[in-house]
């Protein structure tokens, strides 16, 4: 065994047995430093004859490469071990709770109004609005409800002691129908609108609150008839409840502002003790539930708005938004809608990201 071979074996053994980075560094300086043993051997190569260098050079070069590689490998191994040791010491209890973000919600009435706007936008209906404090002309008279008409008694109206500039009594609108009048008197036909909003009646019990939400629909055009009304309501209800088996039952009824007037029932079945909209109400275990009032707009109403009823005709409908929400999402107490109970709002409310869209579905 030559001297070089012995040196190599000794150095590699030392490197192998080093267990700190400092020892490795010490070994590197001792072998490869300016006055290291390997450096010294390398220096001898310069004084050799070419023949001698040919013979002794390769083992020396091999010595340097082996020692350099061994040091690098050892250093990497020791560094890795040190990092692992540090990481092990940094261990956290990852079952500790992260900070929770507060949970907000959109009220079901707002959500349903957005759903309705989305559905009706596809049918070409814009959303119209009007004031909640109305005059009695728009709320009653223009809608063909004269002062002594028994239909006024059907509305438990909240009145103000005030009158407007034209001497009309001011009141809280009892329905969203005055928006029909406002639309027809300000926009030329053809008209397709829905008008959602708050309405008020002096009524308070388990199923009535003095304030609630309605949505009104109005179409004024040429050649519009009851068949269009029927299709519109079917189409809307199918889209809203996301069921193709929605079955309507139309019943003749009476509203002063429509003629003919039609009440619309929708079939339901009882599933797990709850009414589920869909199917025929005449099916076993089924029933009919009144959901909408509607009809062809009364000629007098069209005239009252300054339009020619021989030229323009159309239909109107109205329904309760709160009720639609209850039927779709299963709430059973209307009063809770207006109580602001955070537990209820979180339970029945909607995420900010549940924006109703036609592509994603209007229900959430």
């Amino acid at each position, binding site marked *: 065994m030559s001297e070089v071979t012995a040196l190599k074996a000794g150095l590699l053994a030392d490197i192998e047995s080093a267990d700190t980075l400092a020892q490795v560094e010490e070994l590197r300086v001792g072998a490869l430093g300016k006055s290291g043993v390997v450096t010294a051997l390398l220096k001898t190569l310069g004084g050799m004859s070419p023949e001698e260098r040919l013979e002794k050079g390769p083992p020396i070069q091999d010595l340097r490469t082996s020692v350099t590689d061994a040091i690098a490998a050892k250093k990497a191994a020791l560094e890795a071990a040190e990092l692992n040791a540090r990481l092990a010491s940094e261990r956290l209890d990852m079952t500790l709770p992260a*900070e929770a973000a507060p949970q907000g919600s959109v009220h079901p009435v707002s959500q349903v109004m957005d759903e309705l*706007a989305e559905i009706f936008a596809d049918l070409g209906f814009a*959303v119209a609005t009007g004031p909640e404090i109305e005059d009695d002309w728009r709320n009653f008279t223009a809608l063909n409800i004269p002062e002594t008409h028994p239909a006024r008694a059907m509305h438990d109206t909240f009145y103000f002691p005030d009158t407007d500039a034209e001497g009309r009594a001011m009141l809280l609108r009892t329905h969203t129908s005055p928006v029909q009048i406002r639309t027809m008197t300000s926009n030329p036909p053809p008209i397709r609108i829905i008008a959602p909003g708050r309405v008020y009646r002096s009524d308070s019990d388990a199923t009535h609150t003095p304030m609630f939400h309605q949505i009104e629909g109005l179409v004024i055009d040429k050649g519009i008839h009851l068949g269009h009304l029927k299709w519109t309501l079917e189409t809307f209800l199918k889209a809203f409840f996301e069921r193709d088996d929605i079955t309507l039952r*139309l019943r003749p009824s*009476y509203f002063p502002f429509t003629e003919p007037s039609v009440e619309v029932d929708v079939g339901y079945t009882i599933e797990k003790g709850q009414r589920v909209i869909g199917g025929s109400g005449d099916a076993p275990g089924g029933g009919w539930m009144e959901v909408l009032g509607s009809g062809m707009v009364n000629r007098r109403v069209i005239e009252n708005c300054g339009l020619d009823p021989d030229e323009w005709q159309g239909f109107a409908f109205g329904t309760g938004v709160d009720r639609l929400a209850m039927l779709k999402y299963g709430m059973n107490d209307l009063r809770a809608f207006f109580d602001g109970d955070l537990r209820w709002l979180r339970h029945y409310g909607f995420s900010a990201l549940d924006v109703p869209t036609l592509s994603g579905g209007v229900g959430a």
Partner: protein
Amino acid sequence: MKFTLSWLKEHLETEASLADILVALNAIGLEVEGVENPAEKLAGFKVARVLTAAPHPQADKLQVLTVDQGDGMPLQVVCGAPNARAGLVGVFGVEGAVVPANGMVLKKAAIRGVESNGMMCSTRELELGDDHDGIIELPAEAPVGSDFADYASLNDPVIDLSITPNRQDCMGVRGIARDLAAKGVGTLKPLRSVYRMPAAPLPTDGPDPDVATLDPEGCPAFYGQEVRGVKNGTAPDWMARNLKAIGQKPISCLVDITNFVMIDLGRPLHVYDKAKLSGGLVARKAKAGEQVLALNGKTYTLDEGMTVIADSAHVHDIGGIMGGEDSGVSEATTDVVVECAYFTPESIARTGQKLGLTSDARQRFERGVDPAFLDEGLEIATWLIVQHCGGTPSDATRAGTPPVAPRNFAYDPAMTERLAGFTLDAEAQRAILEKLGFGVGADWIITVPTWRRDVDGAPDIVEEVVRIHGLENVPSTPLPRAPGVAKPTATPEQMTERRARRAAAARGLSEAINWSFISEKEAASVGGGDWTLANPISEDLKVMRPSLLPGLLAAAARNQARGASSVRLFEIGRRYFRAEDGSSIERLTLAIVMAGDKRPRGWQSGKARAFDAFDAKAEALVLLGAAGAPVGNLQMFGEAGDAYHPGQSGTLRLGPKTVLAEYGVLHPALAKAFDLSGTVVAAQLFLDSIPAKRKAGLMRAPYAPPALQAVTRDFAFLMPEALEADALVRAVRQADKKNIVDARLFDVFTGAGVEPGMKSLAVEVTLQPGEKSFTEEELVGISTAVVKAAEKLGGVLRG
């Protein structure tokens, strides 16, 4: 409107089943509210005879009966009724029957050691009356073993209809029968045969009654007839049974006759006790302040717009609404005056509304009774009185004239298609109309029947045809659709509202919907409201809110009372103000209230943290931004109003006048008034004040990032303590508009090293170089300008 099936069949000859009749009623617009057969409750109750009665061995008040219930196997029954005795025929509930009054299921049981099978019942137990002193006693010939419901003619479904206000004619059973006949559910029987009236009129005797009308506007016709020598006993069984079945308590034969005719024919009547009248009866306008004690026991004070029936001394009737107590009939009555009048609907409606008085008669008169039915109505009433109370009628007196002028108009059968969308043969339309009583001329001139006051034009005729032919024939017809994808419909205001709502929910706030009206006290706490209801449903819901805060604060307090430790609520709704001209101004507003813990105690953050004014400010800014307000241009002012802590609140404005938001810590007094605990913060955002964005195209400005990176420099100034930080930041930004693109306050400090009356404010200034990097001289120049700007505000650069 309630009636029984057998009652309906008095007028309608039909083989149709109950189910078919109900379907037809709904189909023609007579909405079925409910149907109930009293016999269902009485299943298992039979006619039975007590065979023997012996004292109970263990109890003085009980007897042991043997009861024959028709099957030849008498049962032993323990009974406590004092009238129980051998031979009595009564009503026996068999084992398994359910007692209607208390829901108890009858079982075989031992009562004081004696076996008892079933129960002999009182009227109260069967919900047939109030009597509970003893068991029911039936006539001895009652068929033992038959179902009691059948025996008592209670096996007769009661139908309840919701009659729309236009259909007075269906406020009587006959009108309903007529509608059903038109639908094809049987045929209408002639009226005289329904009442079993002879063809010849009754013989009359004595003078006609003295009745007159001095009020042709309110009471255009007042017909009267006298019947002398009556005996006012109880109504005949069939009449009493019908009235009872629909929940009307039989009172006396005369009163029951008027009630029966009103419900049967929709024709209200009134009967006066002649002996209690002073002279004749006259319909006239009331005198102001005149009073009448009505049959409901209340005294009403009348005014000159109201029609009354009076004699020479008193008012006896609020015409067409309610009779008077003083002239009502009693058991002692012998001579009566029957009133059959026509009252003008508008007048009845006004009087009824003013007095707040409803009655079955008002309901019918204000909807408009058949003006051509006075003679027949009077004749039928008189016939029934003579039949069941005896006596001799006078001739009728007819004062005034009812408004019976025929009403005609032209109708084009093609109109049905125009409005309803289906075609129906003209002759089929004619047949429907004629069955309903319309006259249809060869030229399609329609004559409206006198009982159909609601019909006055061609669309009404379409309605009649459609409802009888059937709405199911209306073809579902798609609305014409504009080509292409549906166009957007939301207005900018609607988009603002939607974005604000969803942003608030995304920020962790829950949306509440509160009443639009608040109490006067709550309104006063936020500056008072412009609109106060004349007829609020309660004092708590009286004033239209000028602020959304009271509603949210009340909701927050309810949540705290339920134990919520952190409340984050918002509402989007209107605030209500009155314009100069008396019209309503309704301002769309988003309000938030946050109370309790902003962050609960935590292992990282330590103690729970309450909300502060800057939390409210942060929400206001974020939500205004989401709603589309130019947040970068907002100026900060104070003056958030009395609802807020005067030193911890502010407003955000565009220019000095346009307030977009108010925010801050709620005034502790207000928090206390609402029973809120802890610091409460709030904000209101005035969404309607956000300026509309100028319509720009969809294309964005070209992207041109600066060539060189921005640099930042920090400055710390000693500033007068009263100086608002924003003034310094704005001054710094303005110091070199070309190079300074941003200035951000990052530290505020008072205390050690800062002299009293001063504070240290540190600002990070962002400088954006243009084509070339800043030279040292340029940087010095910018710094000098910044320092000068601070010095102008009384500041000094900290060394």
